[in-house]
């Protein structure tokens, strides 16, 4: 067989493999706390699934397997938005959270962190690789000192990175939903060399998007989903820029070349 034919066959097979591969996006959603499930939004949706109790993919159902369904109302429209935008063909969520939780539940011995450990152990059985880890901040009524809050979340994100295979982290921080509007807004900075990037700004959504001071309405959830998609796109751009600037990109590229 001539080399030209060989090259042609290799090209065809590579293209065929690429076409056959659906772009799966796996998202570990760490839900700080919040509201109960919105059952009407949890109906079966094509190409959106979750990681079940044994680590296998299962259909999305109410409640989520590893979460008390907090912010489930954001994840379903988010899955749809990701597929609609062409960023993924299938979206697989692993939402973890406890109802009524707060950042303290994510510290050592807390309800949420214990649940997370178990969920990641199960996910690791199938060598699940998460494309994104979301920290879904919450609309809380208590004021949280920004520095302490950031340190607490950083600790959680570090423990996730050490326990599982995760690529990028997108963090939407909590806001004090009952705080005076004139209070200074704090934008937390996340370490881009650890692939940590800021997520949607919960404070930016006004009354039109809220059922009350501390809860979004349906429109708010859809808007939040769009903002998460936007954050993903921004994180992709920024990640490449920072990784190249810091030379890390070239160190990691070596492995990609070796293993692909």
């Amino acid at each position: 067989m001539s080399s030209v034919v060989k090259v042609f066959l290799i090209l065809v097979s590579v293209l065929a493999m690429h076409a056959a591969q659906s772009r799966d996006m796996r998202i570990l959603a760490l839900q700080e706390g919040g509201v109960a499930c919105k059952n009407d939004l949890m109906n079966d949706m094509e190409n959106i699934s979750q990681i079940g109790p044994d680590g296998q993919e299962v259909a999305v159902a109410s409640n989520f397997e590893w979460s008390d369904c907090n912010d489930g109302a954001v994840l379903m429209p988010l899955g749809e938005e990701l597929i609609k935008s062409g960023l993924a063909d299938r979206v697989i969520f692993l939402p973890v959270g406890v109802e009524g939780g707060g950042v303290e539940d994510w510290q050592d011995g807390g309800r949420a962190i214990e649940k997370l450990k178990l969920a990641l152990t199960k996910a690791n059985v199938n060598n699940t690789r998460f494309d994104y880890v979301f920290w879904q901040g919450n609309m809380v009524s208590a004021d949280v000192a920004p520095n302490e809050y950031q340190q607490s979340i950083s600790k959680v994100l570090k423990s996730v990175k050490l326990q599982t295979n995760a690529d990028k982290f997108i963090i939407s921080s909590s806001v004090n939903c009952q705080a005076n509007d004139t209070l200074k807004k704090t934008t937390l900075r996340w370490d881009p060399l650890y692939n940590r990037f800021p997520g949607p700004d919960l404070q930016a959504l006004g009354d039109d998007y809220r059922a009350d001071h501390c809860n979004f309405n349906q429109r708010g959830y859809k808007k939040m989903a769009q903002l998460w998609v936007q954050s993903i796109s921004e994180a992709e751009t920024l990640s490449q820029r920072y990784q190249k600037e810091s030379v890390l990109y070239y160190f990691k590229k070596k492995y990609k070349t070796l293993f692909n």
Partner: protein
Amino acid sequence: MKLNFRYSLENFRGVAIIFVMLSHIGSFKSMGQYSDYLFYFLVDATAWFVFISGYLFYYLEIEKFNYTKYLARKLKFVILPYLILSVPAIAAGLYLSRNILMDLTASDYAIWSILTGGTVVAPMWFIPMIAVFFLLTPLLSRIAKSPLLLAVTVVGLLFSIFSFRPVHNSNAIFSFLHFAGFYLLGISAAKHALQLDAISDAWKVRIIVLSLLAFVLIGFSYPGMEAEPISFLGTIGGLNYPILGKLALLVAIFFAFERFFNVQNKSLSFMAKISFGLFFIHGFATLVFVKWLNGLAYPGDFSRLGAEVFFVVGGSIVVVYVLRRVLGKWSRYVIGC
């Protein structure tokens, strides 16, 4: 041309190292409304160090410049201490799992840290950057002797003012480009030292007052820490308020010290002599404070700030002093002073 020993420059170096150490005090960022002003006041004093390096390069090296000997000396007293102190810094990074957070193997993390300075001990990035200056001294030497020096300096300074440091200071080439203007300014100041000396005292005072005024005005326009870009790429053209402020303050301090403080000051002289060691050691002190002492119950933000300043600045001076006594003539090979 041979100039007398410049105590003013030595005193400036002593002040610069104090600013550099204070700029790494994390508690300043928790001082509410004062944080932005403190940040603006303290950050980027590294530019002064680069200026002084440029000044000393011209002042001490230019007439008898020998590239090989120059590099050999820098290898012994700058790069070797850097490599030695990189060992505990890299070990700390591995202990803190930084390699995993960055998706690097332990060996790649070590190589990356040496190339960039790493992220565990904040000031280490300076050495890879200053090594770029060392390597480019033949070029810098030619520029220094060229009639185009002032024009190149102005272009370099404009670039410094309209650019920012690379992300986490992790790219020595970009850091070099960002700070090169200050190095060239140092060379220019040394080359034209006699002309600068000849400026009348009245004019020097006017320059000092105007520079201080500019520093204050730029400070009031400063949009704050949160607006600071964190990378070099994609931000060129944006006004770097702190670096512009530091340029204004540099001019003020340079002339003020020339005019009023060109005498030996034992404290600043000591700080200048150990400045290189302090540059390294205070990074470790900052790390220790952040990891183990920051979480203690302090009565308030000011007491935490006081404790951190005492620990980082005071502790670093003590450690460098002790290491110099213990290591004797070897201390230059280990801590660079």
